[in-house]
């Protein structure tokens, strides 16, 4: 198995996910299998292939620096679970 339970807990913590002990064991198995499968790519000789920076063969997609209309304050806050004084309200953040 290529993925340890510690790896799963570490990644879960970064993603702010909580798992039970059983789930951690199951995920280590399942994610490990995915990684093992992806690992088969390492068997290929890629020494002569240029690194892929982007999957599309497209570059330089820009827009002009021109102002367009914005959402109103009400529209911007329409989906906010909580708002106050024209702002999104989130749980208190330690400064």
């Amino acid at each position: 198995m290529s993925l340890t339970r510690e790896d799963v807990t570490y990644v879960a913590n970064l993603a702010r996910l909580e798992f039970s002990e059983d789930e951690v064991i199951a995920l280590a198995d399942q994610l490990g299998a995915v990684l093992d499968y992806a690992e088969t790519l390492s068997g290929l000789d890629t020494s002569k292939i240029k690194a892929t920076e982007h999957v599309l063969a497209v570059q330089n997609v820009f827009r002009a620096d021109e102002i367009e209309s914005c959402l109103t304050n009400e529209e911007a806050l329409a989906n906010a679970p909580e708002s106050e004084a024209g702002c999104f309200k989130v749980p208190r953040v330690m400064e």
Partner: protein
Amino acid sequence: MEYEIVIGMEIHIELGTKTKIFCSCPTEFGQDENTHTCPVCLGMPGVLPVLNEKVVEYATRAGLALNCEIAHFSKMDRKNYFYPDLPKAYQTSQFDLPICTGGVVGIEVDGVKKDIGITRIHIEEDAGKLLHESADGTLLDVNRCGVPLIEIVTEPDLRSAEEARAFAEKVRNILEYTGVSDCKMEQGSMRFDVNLSIREKGSEVLGTRTEMKNLNSFRALIRAVQYESKRQIIELKKGHTIIQETRKWDDTKGTSSSLRSKEEAHDYRYFPEPDLVPIVLEPAYIEKIKSELPELPEAKKQRYIDEYKLPEYDAGVLTTTGVTARFFEDAVALYNEPKQISNWMMVEIPPLLKENEVSMENISITPAQLVELLKLVKNNEISGNTGKEVLKEMFSTGKNPGDIVKEKGLAQMSDTGELEAIIEKIVSDNPKSVEDIGAGNEKAYGFLTGQVMKATKGKANAQVANEIIRAVVAKHLA
């Protein structure tokens, strides 16, 4: 043991584009909360960011002005972390292929010149602003989300608070000249992060560093460096080890405190941004931007010394900001007396700016008005001292100097006939002074000159008056 401070800096600068980096919302500062947003900068699912072409142009210009290599190929990446000022839960930035690499900026501290290496400059988006005004939560204003930034990362080449300040000022100076940012620190357009460590002097190995984020004034920068270096040296002297961590600088208290330790927080899991395609810059594009760069402070300073024959000090002061340099050049174009203009700009104007609480950007007098005033002084129509008074009046009223002189009757009295009559009377009225002068007391001349100035309300041409006084006194003594 002698210690050495080692500092590397990260400088964030908001670019002066009209719109945000990935959407068409305006970047204007100081607007009502959450009125400059759209689905892209709000981080709604399914939206497609599109890079602002001006951001690429400004970053390239900044890189060239700071002597960097401009990358032929660069790309955007996602930097993942959770914080409520970042609606997407990632910041779109650049990781392994930044737009600029390997620059250098020369600084001078106490007459010692030194080159500071720039590791890289990358483009990224600013985060939103958290307001801690609510009783039971934190408020978020998304207006600043997506305002374009460049982050300038230096080599650990700085060795003191003074060097850090000199470097930061130089960068601000250069970027303000190139017009990529207004660099207004009071609006957060320029912010500093400081990485600082201590090592034994002469050692090649770097010590464990701490990072202080978001220092937003030169004063905070200097004080934070002084405090943190002292703190680390004290720790080391006690035999403690330095913990690698992010520290928060409290400018009011003048202390720093631990924010979070680096190992647990900094796993950003960068990966290439799939929604934005690579940036490929052709040599012709880079050359064109290079050819359009304005004259930079260093070159301008040298030109002032060579062309206008100004002392190095004057040239340095006048080229500190682009606005000051433009004012000076406009004035010189109208009146070829660079040193006289320089003197007035360096000595007389700054206190008036301070008194009126304005900066050179919104100075109320024009170069043409200053030139008119200096001509009045040069031609002896008013004295230098009267000139200073007139300048003060110009600042508060915006009137032309000629009009002020006329209205207030400040024109200098050079009419010898009129002056002679006044002086004749004063000398006659003060026989004691004449006696003193006869006895060899030259100081008595000063008293007489004072009386003449009093009688003429300071309008007598001092040189002419002195000649007449000497002639009249000589006559009385004869």
